[in-house]
């Protein structure tokens, strides 16, 4: 049919998704391939490159747990969708719906009457040795009988062409968000391809999910407050949690954002506590309530089980629903199905044996090579073992383990996965393929996502398809019958949305993180500017007398960026070139140095990733670029390389502040971020001036020039005073001039404005921090510069030093006030972060 498919050969032995037995292209693939053909290989490559950049910049990542680097992998997406014909999809959907129904009934029975055990349908060992069976959850009756609201099923297509269930995912089924992102990327990259193929949309599925979550609160409230609960940014699919939260329009919260008061659950927000009616949880049962579910861990929301028992909060999926994904349940599905819905299963299950049964265990050990061995209960994260690939010694060891603890293992037949075409090296190549399908339980019945998440093997001969092992993903396109209905998640009934401008419901944790994001970005900016100023003087021959200010600048740098400066001060940077270089590189790259540029940037990026859903994609890209710039420079390079890196780095740093003031609504969230930003700039500028001006050298001009350079105010200064550089006009410009965005006064005025605006959240009339902020502004605007530049008998500007120290202290005090009033009880990691900031300052303050 076309050049794209001419050279394509499906994998031998596997069901070919695209090619019929006679070698022809299956009809439901043809329109898509024709379109792809129209784009042409070169065009596909070009567009795909762009799409991949978008994916990376959007931060679609998948964290891999066992990775030493702890880094996250970019999401791998293939441009060729898996095509599914409408007839086939209908059959598959019916099977999926039946499956979810049966599993839901199974849960309902095992968590109450246990007739399945009493009637010998299920062996009782299956429940009693199952760590996912959580006895405290027996008292919870989920609304509408929905133990499972969202369910996912991993499917493989056997060589005969039949879909077969490999695995159920019921606790917090991952992947639906990735499927949606895949769809958006693909439809954006190949718009005509998508438009002309007549593909079923995903949006109706998500709107059903939203409705179904709302219904979980019905009877209690008509406008439920729904949140998405995530274990945090270290979770392997945090991106998806943030993505789903944003797409459904719910706040993304961590366990620490929620609190149980009485028997109700609340979200801690800036404006106080706000009741939560429904929780879409993306974390395991064991992370949900340390009082009842966690064994001896501390994670979770104490009292959540009680709140669920009392029916004050609905949790989807219900606590305890990890039970439904027990791999050892797989072989029992047909009997459950017959027993609970009186029908034969519509979908095959991959032949599976639970070794906890004597006969089955013997059968497994007798034909050991045939099997893939997996853990019977889903609390273990162990890779499946293909027995035929084991060495004789490993085989014996595994058999022994099974004999000792037979109930802990299942054996599954290894399935020959179907093969589908993937785009690689400008051509189509075959890869093993699996489909993850999603089903949502609604009031009117079950609804299947038309499509799903397709995963492919990294190599043609690899039997494992998983993101952890480096596989790729695909979109699944279900060909629609007739025309495609357009559904959007934007509400159509305009009266349903009340205009609202306040973001007082912002969670305290998010506000705290935004505050520290502002501080770290600004710290990085000041660090980078100071370093650049120093590097310029070290690498460029600008002045005839060398650079007499260098030792002073290096001293200031050590003082400002580290808590302790261990090494002896550098007195002659030119002669001590090697030491100087070590110092500078440590200040830039050393991971162990808490106050340096590296740590400020890493902290900014880490915090940025925890508030992903609150910052724009553009802002995220800027953070990402900062990270890239930092890592682009060799840590063992030369000084000019480092200088170049700093030049490049300052661009995104500048862009960050521009973008945040222009593209974030100036609500409370922005105010917290800007306040952090201003506080850091005020503090660091005060520190810089204090370090470099309180003990002036006889010839001060080079130091003054350097200060102007760091503070990015040389241009303004020269336009006012030409080339005559003196301390008094410099202090006026950098301290008192509230029209200079780099001056301390300017920061203080803005801080004061933010504080006044935030006071609307409080019931008190005038808050102490309002008074303190006002005083501070007055003090700096009215200081007597003539007096401040005077030196005493020891040649020190004591008054100036006192003033600057006090400003720094007061700003710290303001920061404490804000933290206590609005951000108290935020999570431990944030508290650690803030302690670190004040620690640095305290040490400086003590010295001063």
């Amino acid at each position, binding site marked *: 049919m076309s050049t794209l498919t001419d050279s394509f050969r499906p994998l031998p032995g596997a069901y070919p998704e695209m090619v019929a037995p006679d070698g022809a292209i299956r009809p439901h693939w043809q329109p898509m391939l024709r379109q792809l053909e129209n784009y042409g290989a070169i065009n596909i490559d070009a567009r795909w490159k762009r799409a991949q950049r978008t994916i990376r910049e959007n931060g679609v990542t998948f964290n891999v747990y066992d990775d030493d680097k702890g880094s996250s992998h970019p999401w791998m997406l293939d441009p060729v969708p898996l095509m599914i014909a409408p007839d086939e999809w209908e059959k598959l959907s019916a099977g999926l719906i039946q499956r979810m129904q049966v599993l839901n009934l199974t849960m309902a029975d095992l968590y109450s009457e246990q007739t399945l*055990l009493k009637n010998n349908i299920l062996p009782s060992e299956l429940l009693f040795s199952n760590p996912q069976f959580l006895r405290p959850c027996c008292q919870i009756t989920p609304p509408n009988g929905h133990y499972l609201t969202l369910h996912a099923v991993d499917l493989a297509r056997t060589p005969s062409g039949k879909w077969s269930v490999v695995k159920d995912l019921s606790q917090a089924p991952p992947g639906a968000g990735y499927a949606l992102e895949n769809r958006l990327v693909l439809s954006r990259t190949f718009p005509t391809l998508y438009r002309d193929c007549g593909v079923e949309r995903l949006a109706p599925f998500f709107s059903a999910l939203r409705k179904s979550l709302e219904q979980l609160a019905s009877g209690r409230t008509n406008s439920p407050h729904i949140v998405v609960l995530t274990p945090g940014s270290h979770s392997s699919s945090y991106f998806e949690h943030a993505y789903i939260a944003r797409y459904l329009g719910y706040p993304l919260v961590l366990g620490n954002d929620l609190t149980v008061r009485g028997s109700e659950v609340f979200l801690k927000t800036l404006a106080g506590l706000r009741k939560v009616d429904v929780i879409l949880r993306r974390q395991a049962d064991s992370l949900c309530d340390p009082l009842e579910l966690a064994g001896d861990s501390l994670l979770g929301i104490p009292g959540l089980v009680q709140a669920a028992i009392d029916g004050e909060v609905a949790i989807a999926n219900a606590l305890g629903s990890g039970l439904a994904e027990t791999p050892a349940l797989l072989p029992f599905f047909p009997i459950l199905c017959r027993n609970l819905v009186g029908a034969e299963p519509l979908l095959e299950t991959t032949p599976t044996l639970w070794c906890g049964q004597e006969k089955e265990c013997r059968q497994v050990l007798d034909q050991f090579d045939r099997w893939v061995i997996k853990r019977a209960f889903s609390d273990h994260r162990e890779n499946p073992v293909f027995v035929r690939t084991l060495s004789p010694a490993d085989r014996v060891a595994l058999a022994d383990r099974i004999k000792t603890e037979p109930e802990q293992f299942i054996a599954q037949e290894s399935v020959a996965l179907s093969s589908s075409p993937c785009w690689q090296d400008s051509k189509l190549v075959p890869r093993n393929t699996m489909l993850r399908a999603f089903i949502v339980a609604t009031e009117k019945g079950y609804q299947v996502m038309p499509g799903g998440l397709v995963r492919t093997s990294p190599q043609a001969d690899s039997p494992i398809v998983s993101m952890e092992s480096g596989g790729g993903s695909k979109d699944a396109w279900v060909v629609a019958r007739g025309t495609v209905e357009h559904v959007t998640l934007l509400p159509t009934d305009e009266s349903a949305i009340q205009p609202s401008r306040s973001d007082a419901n912002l969670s305290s944790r998010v506000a705290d993180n935004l505050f520290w994001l502002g501080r770290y970005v600004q710290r990085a900016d000041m660090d980078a500017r100071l370093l650049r100023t120093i590097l310029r003087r070290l690498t460029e021959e600008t002045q005839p007398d060398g650079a007499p200010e260098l030792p002073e600048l290096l001293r200031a740098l050590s003082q400002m960026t580290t808590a302790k400066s261990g090494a002896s001060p550098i007195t002659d940077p030119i002669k001590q070139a090697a030491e100087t270089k070590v110092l500078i590189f440590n200040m830039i790259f050393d991971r162990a140095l808490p106050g340096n540029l590296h740590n400020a940037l890493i902290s900014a990026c880490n915090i940025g990733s925890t508030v992903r859903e609150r910052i724009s994609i553009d802002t995220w890209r800027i953070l990402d670029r900062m990270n890239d710039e930092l890592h682009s420079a060799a840590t063992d390079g030369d000084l000019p390389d480092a200088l170049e890196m700093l030049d490049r780095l300052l661009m995104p740093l500048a862009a960050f502040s521009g973008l945040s003031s222009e593209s974030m609504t100036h609500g409370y969230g922005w105010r917290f971020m800007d306040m952090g930003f201003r506080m850091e700039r005020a503090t660091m500028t005060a520190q810089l001036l204090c370090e470099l001006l309180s003990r002036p050298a006889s010839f001060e001009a080079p130091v003054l020039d350097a200060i102007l350079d760091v503070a990015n105010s040389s241009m303004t200064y020269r336009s006012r005073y030409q080339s005559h550089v003196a301390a008094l006009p410099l202090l006026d410009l950098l301290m008192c001039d509230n029209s200079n965005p780099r001056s301390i006064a300017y920061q203080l005025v803005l801080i004061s404005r933010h504080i006044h605006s935030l006071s609307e959240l409080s019931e008190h009339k005038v808050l102490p921090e309002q008074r303190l902020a006002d005083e501070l502004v007055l003090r700096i605007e009215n200081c007597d510069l003539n007096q401040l530049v005077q030196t005493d008998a020891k040649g020190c500007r004591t008054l100036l030093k006192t003033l600057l120290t006090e400003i720094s202290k007061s700003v710290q005090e303001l920061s404490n006030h804000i933290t206590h009033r609005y951000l108290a009880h935020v999570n431990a990691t944030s508290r650690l972060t803030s302690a670190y900031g004040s620690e640095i300052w305290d040490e400086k303050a003590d010295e001063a």
Partner: protein
Amino acid sequence: MIYHLRHLTSFRYTQPVTFVYNTLHLKPRELPWQNIKSFELEIEPAPVVQTERLDYFGNTATFFMIQSPHDAMKVLTKSIIEVLPRPIAPQAGIPWDTARRIMRTNTTPNGLDAYQYSFPSLYAKPLDEARAYTLPSCRPGMTVHAVATELMTRIDTDFTFDPKATTIATPVTEVLQNRRGVCQDFAHLMISCLRSVGIAARYMSGYIQTVPPPGQPRLAGADASHAWVSVYCPQAGWLELDPTNNQVADEQYITLGWGRDYQDVSPAKGVLLGGGQHTVHAQVDMIPESEILQAQKNRPQQQIQHQQQQQQSQYWWL
């Protein structure tokens, strides 16, 4: 025997605590041989929420929550309980090595309930070491009853009561190695041993009466929380054995409840939000009604070992 039971648990914090979430298992369980004539629970400061529910094992669990700043908390229970002789445990029965097979085929509600106690739980997992310790008591033809009773006596002989040797978190393996511990450790050890040879056993939480030495007055608060073991003898029923005192539980034992291990029925477990260190002090008085009526009467009896007053803390800090 009728007892007047008073159990006071006091918590003291070095820094004020604002939020306390607690689950108590402190209400004595109604049983054929145990009538609860009255029960009162007092908590200070007053909780905002206090609810009772029956847990999975049929015990009463009380959830409460305090949300006002406080630096001390008191949980006091007062009850009047009549304890009757337990049904006589049958001496005959099935051989120990057939127990598991018989249990797994019994899917009656009682059978299922008993069977679950033969599976691993957090604090009482079947272990190779525990199995090795148990096997000498598992000779061919011995009944479950005989195995369990012999095991109890051996634990009493081989192990030393030592409140300083262990904490709540001490695993059974360590207790086995050091041969020291308190009632809770011996109960977990014995359960672990029995489960490792296929016998179902559950953890009993309650109180044991101490009797002062002859001629001495009863000391206030000298009685104690106690833990022992209940062994399932298929076709016969449950047999309560106390490995700490090498005796079958009798009218001296008040039952609060039972579970797979301590985790399921710990008298008080909670999560605190706040800062600082804390100490827990428990005081138990278990006075026979007859003694209250005839205050001077003394009956000589063997001294009974019990868990020390200073309880291990089951509280975590958030």
